[in-house]
């Protein structure tokens, strides 16, 4: 009786949820196949074409529509996201490791770290810009903005690793020590392989959060724009479907990142299973 009511309600809810989650992307995807160079970013589709994709890669004959001024931004954003990912994950793993034993002032330190993801980005960005001005530091995407990206993403990596260590059985480390393995080697050869899935998650968080970070970067990055800022910049002139084509391409890039993550995550499990099956046979 109950399920006959709840089930349809839940399916409608789920449908709406998916619609709002992926609707924008689907619309963007459809419009990216508008004809060019005269088709605009609106329905109806005059004619299906891959013109705007060719335009993104500079394969179309010159027209009144200029190439997107975002390629340097893309390179900067990828570099920045990669740097942020490495630094935040290393910091996250190390600080979570430190939190495995309670130390004096650990509560305060915990909240100080987590604060980095709680404070409004615009305020921090603006604040850092002011400080940089006062101190006389140039604002750059690889300097001031990088610092803010780490401050922002490090708490995520830290919390992921904290959860991983929470379920971690430290007796395997003690077992290694008692076999004569030094603590550093134990961390590398025993602890790290076991927490590696968590490390991957932390890396994914740090990368994606940094890659599309906007508000902090807006004030802190100086003259050279990152990708989100560059895209935002194009909106102020005129919007053509080439930005949609680019959007589809970057989303596919994100999916491929997720796929790499999934493959790495399951690889060890699958190997374990195979050995176990051989064992049963």
């Amino acid at each position, binding site marked *: 009786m109950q399920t006959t009511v709840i089930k349809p309600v839940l399916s409608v809810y789920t449908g709406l949820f998916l619609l709002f989650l992926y609707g924008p992307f689907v619309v963007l995807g459809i419009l990216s196949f508008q004809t060019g160079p005269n088709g605009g970013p609106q329905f109806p589709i005059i004619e299906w074409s891959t013109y705007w994709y060719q335009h993104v890669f500079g394969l179309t004959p010159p027209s009144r529509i200029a190439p997107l001024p975002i390629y340097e931004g893309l390179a900067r954003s990828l570099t920045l996201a990669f740097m942020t990912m490495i630094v935040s994950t290393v910091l996250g793993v190390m600080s979570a490791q430190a939190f495995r034993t309670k130390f004096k002032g650990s509560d305060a330190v915990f909240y100080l770290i987590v604060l980095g993801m709680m404070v409004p980005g615009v305020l921090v960005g603006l604040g850092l810009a002011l400080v940089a001005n006062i101190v006389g530091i140039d604002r750059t995407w690889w300097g001031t903005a990088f610092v803010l990206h780490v401050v922002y993403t490090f708490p995520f990596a830290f919390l992921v690793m904290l959860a991983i260590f929470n379920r971690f059985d430290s*007796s*395997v480390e003690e077992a*290694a020590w*008692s076999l004569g393995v*030094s603590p550093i080697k*134990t961390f590398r050869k025993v602890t790290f392989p076991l927490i590696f899935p968590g490390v991957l998650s932390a890396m994914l968080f740090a990368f994606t959060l940094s890659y599309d970070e906007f508000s902090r970067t807006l004030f802190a990055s100086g003259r050279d724009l990152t990708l989100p800022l560059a895209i935002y910049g194009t909106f102020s002139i005129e919007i053509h479907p080439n930005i949609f084509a680019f959007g589809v391409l970057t989303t596919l890039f994100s999916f491929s990142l997720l796929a790499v993550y999934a493959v790495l995550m399951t690889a060890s499990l699958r190997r374990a299973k195979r050995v*176990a099956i051989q064992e049963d046979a």
Partner: protein
Amino acid sequence: MDHDLQLLNVGKVYDNGTPAVIDFNLDVKKGEFIAFLGPSGCGKTTTLRMIAGFEDITSGDILIRGRRINDMPPEKRPTSMIFQNYALFPHMSVRQNVGYGLDVKGMAKAERDTKVDRILDKLGLLDIADALTHKLSGGQRQRIALARGLVVEPDILLLDEPLGALDANLRKAIQAELKLLQRNLGITFVFVTHAQSEALTLSDRIVVMNQGRVEQISAPAELYTRPNTAFVAQFIGRNTIFDGTVLDENSEQVKVETPFGIFTGTPNKSPSAGRSAKIIIPSESLEIHPAGSVTRDQISAEYSGNVLPGVMERADVIGHLVQMSITLVGGSSVLLEGHVEKYRRDDLKPLSDVLISWKSKNATVISAG
């Protein structure tokens, strides 16, 4: 010096001020099998972890083969620990698990492989040498843990409730294996358990602990027949205990006045006259007489006054044993077992009056102060 392990006034106080281990003294000879026995929270595991180096020592000294190791990190100590949850490396095969301790020592591959194969063979693990560990049974994993701990040839093997996670049958089988292995290898074993039967079957000497203190260090048989303290008497075996006052003492026998009569026992730590004492009688030493067949005086004469009237509450035949529960004067009850041939009798049926008695040499008197 032939001591493998010495604990000298070892104490441990946790950061919050709670004492975990108080003034622990122990000398362990090479090749001895020592069990730390006690209820949970008595400090036995903490002591083991102090020997392994996982816990700091607050006071006292720990010596291994005469060398003070208080400040030596765990990986430098000549000890190896076996954990209750096995603590195998889940990302390594059985062979890699066992060989890992030799790898980090920088042993040549050929020598390592020989050693690993030899210990795997000894523990019957060669067939599964290349499997990952998480699909294996508890018994197999415990054997892998043992192989991994033993292959590095420690001076002392520390075992923290290693059989606790196994089912009863398997536990018995591995107990026997463990004992045999220890005897063959001649390595000193320090074994923590809360199961008295395990400690009694396996060890050469047992350290009984309670609330951070050592209650008694004795061979199993002695622990059973000559408990030092009331705690040991209650924890080990099945004992009947009466409180009383020492009337009269000599080196052989002590008379204790209890609310139920004046009883005689053998002194353990000779308590002096006038002091309060406890007399401890193991169930196995109690004899039961049907009240109709003899008088109390007859028994009293034969057993130096060690006789008490009671009522048989229950007498259940279980296989070749009779399990009996007898209520004594004063309301305390004793549980005991006897062979059917001796105790399945009409005049020992439930609700019959009985007399119980014991020989003075079998009762232990300890001072209760």
